């Protein structure tokens, strides 16, 4: 930053600042929903999720000079994950890095903890699918949550869970197969397995 820039900055913003701030807004605003969803998934609490995303935004803004401008979602998810882990380590130094996999709540519990009435979670509740998801193991529920409910790609989910992409694919396949088997047992899906 030049002396002129610093002088201007003390009075307000420089043209460079405004350009950076504009680019930051453009890159980040469209990613807020996915950050909020994943943050909610990690923290299990609506207020904590909002705080986590806000901390993530501040860290992202401070590091924006070092961001190459490509794939903002992947960049932001990495900051979100690291911010969450740092916070967890401070509070609970005994927790391990696979904490994420064990922090995927079943959707019914998530809705109530959120203070959001279950009926507001979706206008067409599907009790069989909800029950199936609730009966999955934490690992299987984690991939379903990140990919199907939060909209992450396989690679993004693998990064969040610290597992290879192939593991995400196989867990996703098994988890969906269990839901499918439940639906077929109820005579709901068409084709035989």
């Amino acid at each position: 930053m030049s002396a002129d820039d610093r002088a201007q900055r003390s009075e307000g913003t420089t043209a460079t600042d405004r350009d950076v701030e504009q680019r930051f807004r453009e890159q980040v605003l469209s990613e807020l929903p996915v950050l909020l969803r994943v943050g909610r998934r990690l923290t299990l609490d609506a207020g904590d999720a909002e705080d986590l995303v806000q901390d993530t935004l501040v860290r992202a803004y401070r590091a924006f000079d070092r961001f190459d401008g490509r794939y903002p979602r992947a960049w932001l998810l990495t900051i979100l994950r690291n911010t969450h882990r740092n916070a967890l380590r401070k509070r609970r130094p005994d927790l391990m890095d696979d904490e994420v996999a064990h922090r995927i709540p079943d959707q019914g519990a998530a809705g109530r903890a959120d203070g959001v009435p279950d009926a507001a979670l979706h206008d067409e509740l599907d009790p069989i699918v909800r029950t199936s998801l609730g009966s999955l193991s934490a690992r299987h529920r984690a991939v379903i949550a990140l990919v199907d409910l939060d909209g992450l790609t396989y690679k993004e989910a693998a990064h969040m869970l610290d597992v290879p992409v192939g593991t995400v694919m196989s867990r996703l396949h098994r988890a969906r197969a269990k839901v499918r088997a439940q639906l077929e047992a109820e005579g709901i899906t068409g084709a035989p397995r």
Partner: protein
Amino acid sequence: MTLVGPNPGLRISEEPVCLEVVAALQAHLDGELAERDAPRIAGHLARCARCASEAATVREVIDRIRRQRPALDLGALGRLTGVVERFGGPDRPVRPAP
């Protein structure tokens, strides 16, 4: 690990057989195949009723799961949008000098 782009581990033959198509169905329906490979799977599904039926069932299962997506906290989203907007004002966090 790069977080973007198709999965390097998936390679689809030019004219995949049913076994290969079924194995790749999930990635195909999730939009995770490379641009080169997706049309190969789609082409097979257009010609093979059995695989097309399997794809329809997998699609239905995925859709039903995705309909369980919890509603987004719109209040929080609005407040966070405001946070980002304020980064252009005097309350913005300080970025280190480059």
